[in-house]
Each structure stands twice: as C-alpha cells, then as structure tokens.
C-alpha cells in the first residue's frame, strides 16, 4: 500500500515539475531547466512522451517473452500475461503517437512527416493491431494462445530492421537522430543534471505504473478465464 502512495506522489511531482518548471537560458536555481537550441519550451514533452514510447517497446518485448514462455510450458496464464502486456502496449503506443504528433505540429510544422521514429511507432501500432485481429479471429483458447505467441515472435524479429533501414531512407528530424545537429542528442549532454533527474524519475515512475497496471490486468484476465470455464 505504501508504495502506491509513493508512486502517486512521484507521478504528481513529475507532472507538476515537468509542466511548471521554467526554461531559462542560464539555469541557476534547482527548479530551472536549461534552454535547448531549436526546442525551447517544446523540450518539456520529454518527461511524458519518451516514457510512453519506452513502455510501448517494453510491453511489446514482454508480450514476446511471455509468448515464448507459453510455447515452452503451455500454461494459459502466460498467455493472459502476454495479452495484457499487448493491450497496455497498444494504449501507450497510441499515447506516444498522439503526443508525438501534437509536438511535431509545433516543432516541425506538420502532424505527420514519416520521420524514422514515426514510421517505427506506426509499424509497432500495425503489429499490435494485427495481433488483436488475429486473437479475435480464433475461438479456441489454446489455439489462440499458440498462434498469437508465434505471430508476436515473428513480428518481434522484424522490428530491428527499422532501426537499420529507416535512417537511410529518411532524414531524421527527431531530436537524438544521428544526423540531427541542432537539438540532439538531447539525452546525452544538452540536459543539465536536474532535468536529467526528472527525466529518469519520470521513466521510473511510468515503468512502475505500467507494471502495476499489467499485474492488475493479467490477474483480471486469469479470473475471467476461470469464471468462463466454470459457467460454460
């Protein structure tokens, strides 16, 4: 119970600090963030957008891991865990895409411009979507678990290709891209220590929140499956 209150305070602090702390050219007080050329006030999205994108990838990875675990042990609880991770991943994927698109309207001038990272998150969204379509097409529990596990593994091995091929096709606009010389790499040296601290705290806070949601979600899923078996 105590950790839940701590998490609540942490997320509240991150939200207030991330939005309200001012960005100044020469930060002196502990609550002031440095000005990053080319980003300005837009830089504050890093506290909310990057954690959602990180959780999208983490959830996809966990979904694949539990898919492999299911194929090894044939335990339907693992399938419930994989499914819940995929559901949460889809939610965070939409959040990351929407926050990114809104930010890019102000930073780049258009909501969507097929930047390598935008393309990658779009591909990830397609994979999640295909996974849910596949799951809804199959009635039988074991078959659904096997096929969705297999599909998530196949999808997982294709994702790294985007990292290699996309920067060669498109010039990166995203802060932190290899050929970005105005604003990036933001994470490494443009942020000062207190901005970095809040960024890391935000990553930790969101990750704990995700695991909490995931645990509630899969326990609910397992109970639902049990109830369905009892009354059918």
């Amino acid at each position, binding site marked *: 119970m105590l950790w839940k209150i701590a998490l609540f305070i942490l997320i509240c602090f991150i939200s207030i600090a991330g939005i309200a702390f001012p960005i100044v050219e020469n930060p002196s007080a502990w609550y002031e963030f440095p000005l990053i050329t080319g980003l300005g006030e837009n830089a504050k999205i890093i506290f909310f957008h990057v954690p959602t994108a990180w959780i999208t990838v983490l959830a996809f990875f966990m979904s694949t891991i539990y898919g492999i675990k299911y194929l090894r042990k044939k335990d339907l609880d693992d399938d419930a865990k994989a499914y819940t991770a995929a559901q949460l991943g889809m939610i965070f994927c939409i959040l990351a895409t929407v926050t990114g698109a809104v930010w890019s309207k102000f930073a780049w001038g258009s909501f969507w411009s097929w930047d390598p990272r935008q393309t990658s998150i779009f591909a990830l969204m397609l994979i999640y979507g*295909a996974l849910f379509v*596949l799951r809804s097409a*199959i009635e039988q529990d074991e078959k659904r678990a096997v096929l969705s596990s297999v599909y998530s593994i196949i999808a997982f091995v294709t994702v790294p290709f985007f990292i290699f091929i996309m920067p060669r096709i498109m010039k990166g606009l995203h802060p932190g891209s290899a050929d970005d010389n105005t604003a990036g790499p933001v994470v490494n040296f443009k942020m000062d220590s207190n901005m970095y601290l809040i960024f890391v705290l935000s990553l930790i806070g969101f990750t704990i929140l995700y695991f909490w949601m995931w645990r509630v979600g899969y326990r609910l899923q397992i109970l639902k499956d049990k109830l369905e078996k009892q009354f059918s």
Partner: protein
Amino acid sequence: MQPFYHIFKKDLSSELRTRYAVNSLVMFILITISVILFSIGTETISDYLAGGLFWVVVFFSAMSGLSRTFVSEEERGTAMTLKLIASPASVFGGKLFFNIVLVFSMNVFVLVLYSILFDAFVLKNLVLFLTAFLLGNIGIAAASTIIAAIISKAGSKGTLYPVLSFPILLPLILILIELTKLSMDGVGLDEAFVEIAVLFCYDVIMFSVSFLLFDFIWKD
C-alpha cells in the same frame, strides 16, 4: 530423394491439375496493373513513383495467391494425412519451396509486363536490381508462407492474410523500394552494400524463425 521435394512435387502436380493459383494470380496482376495505368491516364509519372508502384503490385499479388498452399490443405481436409506421413520441417520446406517458385514466376511476369507498359521504369543498374529482386522474392515467400500457416489454423479468414503480413513485410518492402530507387540512379553494388546486407539478414532471420516456429503451428 528428400522428403520436402516430394511435398513440393505433390503441390506442383495438384496446382498443374487445377491451375487455380496461377490463373487467379495472372488475372490479379493484369487487373492491378491496368488499374494503375487507368489512374495514371495521360499523365507522366516520375521514375521513383513507378519503382514504388512496382512493389505495390508485387505485394498485393503475393497477398492474393500465396495463402493457398496451407489453406487448401485445410479445406480439402488433407492436413491430417500430411501430418502423419511427413515431419513438420519437410512439410514446411516443401511448401516454402513451392511458394518461392510461385513468387518467382509471378514476379518475373510482373517485371516483364511492367517494363513494357511503363516508360518511366528504367533501371540503370540491372545487376543491383536483380540481386534485390532475387533476395526480395525469397524474403516475401518465407514471410508469407509462415503467415499462411498461421491463418490456415485460424479458420482461414481471407481478410486476415494481408493484415497479418503487412507489418512483417513492411521493412522488406521499404528496403526493396529504396534499392529500386538506387538502381534507377545507377548506384554501384558496393555503395548499396548495406541495403543488400540488410535484405540478406532479413531472409536468413525469416527462414530460421519460420522453421523454428512452424512445429508449434503445425502440431495442434
């Protein structure tokens, strides 16, 4: 004789008897290309657009024809017999080989038609394009064979096939479009080495993943 070769021969002779896949593929390719030609009308299109549209035709014709291999076994109820007489690896090998042959004949047909009908489709570096074409076809066949196996077990729902295949084939198609552009610019083989290497890696990874995972799909 390898057992996978027998599976391939069985598929080939049953295909030659009905010629369903080949006929529908040829018609599908003709329809897709004519739709593109009608929508272009008298406009002149750029080289890059012609190169991109080539892979659109290839992708959609692959989606219309390649799911047959496994779906037809489930429809005819012969999947169980196949399970008894052959190991999963040889079944998959035979089906994959059949799909590779089908994709190759289909895409050579598309390529010939396309070069005749589109003036903008000029390839300056033919060696680079043919290397990409060869590796790309193998990749398309490998990815679509394993997805075909998945949907045949999912009650062979027709619309499911392109939905599941597209995210898997997306990196491959992006690389192929890029390589087509490069070969249109006349870029040398050594300059496009990274793209060719990525394409080769995709093929190898798809092959190994499909062979590893096919057992789980095939055994109920």
